[in-house]
């Protein structure tokens, strides 16, 4: 067979050199390699270049920065928030089983409740999620969790709150004015919790705990979502706590917290990292807070939803009974919650770690580490931030403190 060689084809001269030798042929492969190399370099370098050069801002004292943050009255904003949590919980298959651990507050009735906010809140407790937030005053807020080809939206407009899950086309609606649901307890508060997964709310919770057990300093400047910010560093003085440090990036202009990072003492990745990736302090677009249930969507009225879930009511009651035995020992970072439950539910301390209440029954027994002390014996269950001690006589001690502190607390209680 006659060979047709490229060297001998009379080409149109469009790039091709006249007589490429073997060497120049091989050299052509340099082009794709170069393209790939340039792309790799761009991917590697551009973020590095963009993040280098912290902004040059006038010095500010920690006190003034905190008061600036407290005085911040940002009511209008829209943007994207990235939330990454790594509590070091034993990995549980799927979000569904996570909600089973949630103390049954939602009364998982089987259908329609996939749009119930409490289930979604549990999903946020692990992994990385992108949220879109928009707010226009206290009356209108919106939070959407961006999912693969789906979205979960929580829209609060005046006295109406809508939750819409596009995946199942399910809607949960409540019209009760703020506070009216108080006697019902949970359901009114839970959607609020979900609304609160912004850096502002995390920062607020930490600032509330700033007292003499804490070192607060301004640790340079940074850029978050394209805005200049001061970095506030909060470190607990105590040796017992598992909290290493908390960093809050505060917008230099208006004092809005833009980024919140909680690092455990054991080092490694942050346990909670919440940051704006995009933020705009203008008025959100009109129509952002409008919601009409789509045709054919399954709408669950919050009231019906609660009355319908008989089991949910019972679970809720159980949980509340269990919580009645809740005590808090110590203060500040070292607080330890104790619970006299009959080996039942446990609770996490109010430190904003978002740790789900865990069913400390037989399942966790296999995960715990046996400890003994003056109090008798029990099991310690560890996550990266929260440790829990379940004594054999049914007491539970939970806190963002290390194992020894839990044992000491148990000994003292004896």
């Amino acid at each position, binding site marked *: *067979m*006659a*060979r*047709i*060689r*490229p060297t*001998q*084809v*009379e*080409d*149109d001269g*469009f790039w*091709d050199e006249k007589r*490429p030798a073997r060497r120049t*042929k*091989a050299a*052509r*492969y340099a*082009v*794709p390699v170069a*393209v*790939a190399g340039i*792309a790799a370099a761009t991917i590697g370098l551009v973020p590095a270049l963009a993040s280098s050069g912290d902004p040059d801002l006038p010095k500010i004292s920690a006190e003034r920065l905190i008061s600036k943050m407290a005085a911040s009255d940002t009511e209008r904003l829209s943007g*994207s928030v990235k939330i990454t949590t790594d509590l070091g919980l034993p990995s549980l298959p*799927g*979000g*569904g*089983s996570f909600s089973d651990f949630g103390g049954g507050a939602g009364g*998982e009735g*089987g*259908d*329609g*409740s*996939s749009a119930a906010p409490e289930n979604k809140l549990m999903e946020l407790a692990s992994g990385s999620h992108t949220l*879109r937030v928009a707010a226009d005053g206290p009356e209108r807020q919106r939070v*959407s969790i*961006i999912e*693969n*080809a*789906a*979205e979960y*939206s929580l*829209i609060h407009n005046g006295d109406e709150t809508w939750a*819409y899950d*596009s*995946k*199942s*086309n399910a809607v949960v609606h409540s019209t009760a004015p703020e506070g009216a649901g108080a006697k019902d307890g949970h359901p009114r508060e839970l959607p609020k919790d979900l609304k609160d997964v912004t850096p502002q709310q995390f920062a607020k919770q930490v600032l509330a705990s700033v007292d003499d057990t804490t070192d607060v300093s301004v640790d340079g400047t940074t850029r978050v979502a394209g805005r200049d910010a001061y970095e506030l560093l909060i470190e607990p003085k105590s040796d017992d706590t598992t909290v290493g440090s908390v960093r809050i990036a505060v917008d230099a202009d208006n004092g809005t917290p833009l980024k919140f990072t909680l690092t455990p003492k054991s080092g490694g990745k942050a346990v909670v990292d919440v940051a704006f*990736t995009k933020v705009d302090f203008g008025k959100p*677009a009109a*129509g*952002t807070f*409008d*919601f*009409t249930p*789509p*045709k*054919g*969507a*399954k709408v669950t009225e919050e009231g019906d939803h609660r009355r319908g879930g008989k089991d949910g009511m019972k679970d809720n009651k159980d949980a509340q009974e269990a919580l009645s035995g809740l005590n808090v020992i110590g203060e500040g970072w070292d607080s330890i919650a104790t619970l006299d439950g009959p080996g039942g539910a446990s609770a996490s301390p109010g430190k904003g770690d978002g740790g789900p209440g865990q069913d400390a029954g037989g399942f966790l027994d296999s995960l715990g580490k046996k400890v003994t002390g003056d109090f008798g014996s029990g099991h310690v269950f560890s996550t990266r931030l929260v440790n829990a001690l379940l004594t054999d006589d049914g007491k539970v001690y939970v806190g963002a403190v290390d194992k020894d502190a839990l044992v000491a607390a148990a000994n003292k209680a004896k």
Partner: protein
Amino acid sequence: MSRAETGAPAAPVAAVRPSRPLWTLALFRSELTTTFRRWRTLALLGVLAAVPVLIGIAVKIETSDGGTVGQGGGGGEGEAPAFFSQITNNGIFLVFAALAATLPVFLPMAIGVIAGDSIAGEASSGTLRYLLVAPAGRIRLLLAKFTAVMAFCLVATLAVAVSGLATGALLFPLGDVTLISGTTVSFGDGLVRALGVAAVVALSLVGIATLGVFISTLTNSGIAAMATTVGLVITAQILDTIPQLHGIHPYLFPHYWLSFADLLRAPVYWDDLVKNLELQGLYAAVFGSAAWARFTAKDITA
């Protein structure tokens, strides 16, 4: 001895040169017509167009007793695929559901067949040398092949979308569209977004199409090139599901495929869409130039 081997005499070249633009177009046109006239291509398009019809009929039958799709099991495992739950309320969602269903397997497989066959198929049937005997130039031939594959990407996507819209309009009501953010837009706006979704899906296939053309230049066996391309599609998608490999996920071409759904948010969430297009552009640049390097330096033996 073929004419190409001795180099064309000066006079014919001079005669051809002035008509070059026309000749270029003619080559592109002939590539397009040969691609779309093949029974194989038409069969592939027919299969793709049948997918939305099947989905539509299945959903219609399942919901004929007044039930709904996609709410079984209370979440968790066994969820219906994306957009299925909205199909019964608005037929336009059949377009999105069909694209979401065909994008992982059917579309890339069809592209793999066409792209893998583009050069290697000509080589194995012994027609590549005749294409090059004509003073077309290898680069131009490569570009013509590439254009034909791109055109197929677009036509294949449109086949799914149009068939989905037609089936949806026949079986289900149409009307105002509720976006996945919960915002309601007019049907016209929904149609525009559907068109945008189709365009993004077609562009999402650029990466695999270029990869297929490159693989096709490596071998003289059309079947081998097709199998390799389709195999790569499957491999990349398996790798994309292994959590331990999350470091390489952003560089796998199927990683951002489902980002077309971000067009259905309000406001549109551009981050992943832009990343997807950048990634496809990168694949096109790297494997396009690799195909050029290979094809222009290759000995054509068949």
